[in-house]
Every structure is written in structure tokens, then in C-alpha cells.
């Protein structure tokens, strides 16, 4: 069983890695921002599997934090100064 779970974790990690580089190399700016999202779900999945494979309950806590901060990192999308109405003028910070 642990072997199987580790293999599943490996598959998910590999798939996530490929997707991550595809996203990071994209020409569309919005697509590059999906990277954190991808790693949030993929990393959490792999961690849960690894935790079950090695029988260490603390790994679930790490996955929990990963999911929480992947959600938090969404804030990054709003930090773009081009996002609010006034564009091209990064100085209007007051």
C-alpha cells in the first residue's frame, strides 16, 4: 500500500511539474498566475498521499497550510496596479 500511494504522489507531482512550466512559459500574463493555484492543489494532493504512505500525521498539517496559503496567494491577483480603474500610472499611490 505505501508503495502504491508513493507512486500516485509521484505521478501527481510529475503532472503538476509539467503543467507548472507550461503555465510559467505562457505568453498570456493571466495564465502565469495560475502557477500558485496549480501547486496548491497538486502539492496538497501529493503531500496527503506521502503522509498516508509514511504514516506521519504531521504531513497533513503541512498540506493544510499549503492549501490555506494557496488561497491567500490569490490576493496577488489584485496587487496588479493595472487592475484598478487607473492604468499606466503606478505613481498614483497617494
Amino acid at each position, binding site marked *: 500500500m505505501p508503495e502504491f500511494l508513493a507512486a500516485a504522489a509521484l*505521478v501527481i507531482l510529475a503532472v503538476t511539474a509539467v503543467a507548472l512550466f507550461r503555465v510559467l512559459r505562457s505568453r498570456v500574463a493571466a495564465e502565469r498566475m*495560475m502557477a500558485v*493555484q496549480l501547486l496548491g492543489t497538486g502539492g496538497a494532493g501529493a503531500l496527503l498521499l506521502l503522509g498516508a504512505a509514511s504514516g506521519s500525521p504531521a504531513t497533513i498539517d503541512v498540506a493544510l497550510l499549503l492549501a490555506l496559503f494557496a488561497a491567500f496567494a490569490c490576493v496577488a491577483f489584485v496587487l496588479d496596479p493595472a487592475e484598478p480603474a487607473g492604468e499606466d500610472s503606478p505613481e498614483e499611490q497617494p
Partner: protein
Amino acid sequence: MNGLVDIATMVLVSMGAVLFLAGALGLLRFPDTLSRLHAVSKADNLGLGLIVMGLLPQAESVSGGLKLICVWLLAQISAATASQLLARKIHRDEGRS
């Protein structure tokens, strides 16, 4: 008894892994940004959900199981918010060009 639970875990986890694969394939093959976003946010979260369901019977305690469900819930929240924010941005960018 134990064997049956293990088989259920294996089946659910495999399905989850396949969904992650499907999400990545969608990301690589879909033609435009919005459908790629759709592939990532939906397939990956369903995959994570299946993995969580598969691992639930293996959880050692009730609190361990609750934490597993919590991980999935958080992933749902973040996927929902991030896709909304991203889709808004993509929409606006397309409207501009």
C-alpha cells in the same frame, strides 16, 4: 474487510491521479485561456477531492479525517476565488485589445 477498504482507496486515488492528468492535458491542449483555466480549476480540485475520499478510510483518527476534509475545503475556496479573479482579469484584457 481490510482488503476491501484498501481496494476502495486504490481505486479512488487512481481516479484522482487520472483527473490530475486530465487537468494537465487540458492545460496543454485547450485553445484559449478561459478553457485552460476551466481545465485546471475544475479537474484538479475534483482530483484532490477523490484523493481525500480515498484516504479517508486510512485516516487514523477522527481529527485526522477532519483535517483531510479541511484541506479539500480550503482548496475549493481558493480555486473558486482565484478563477473568479483571473477570469475577470482575462475578460478585461480581452475587452481592451
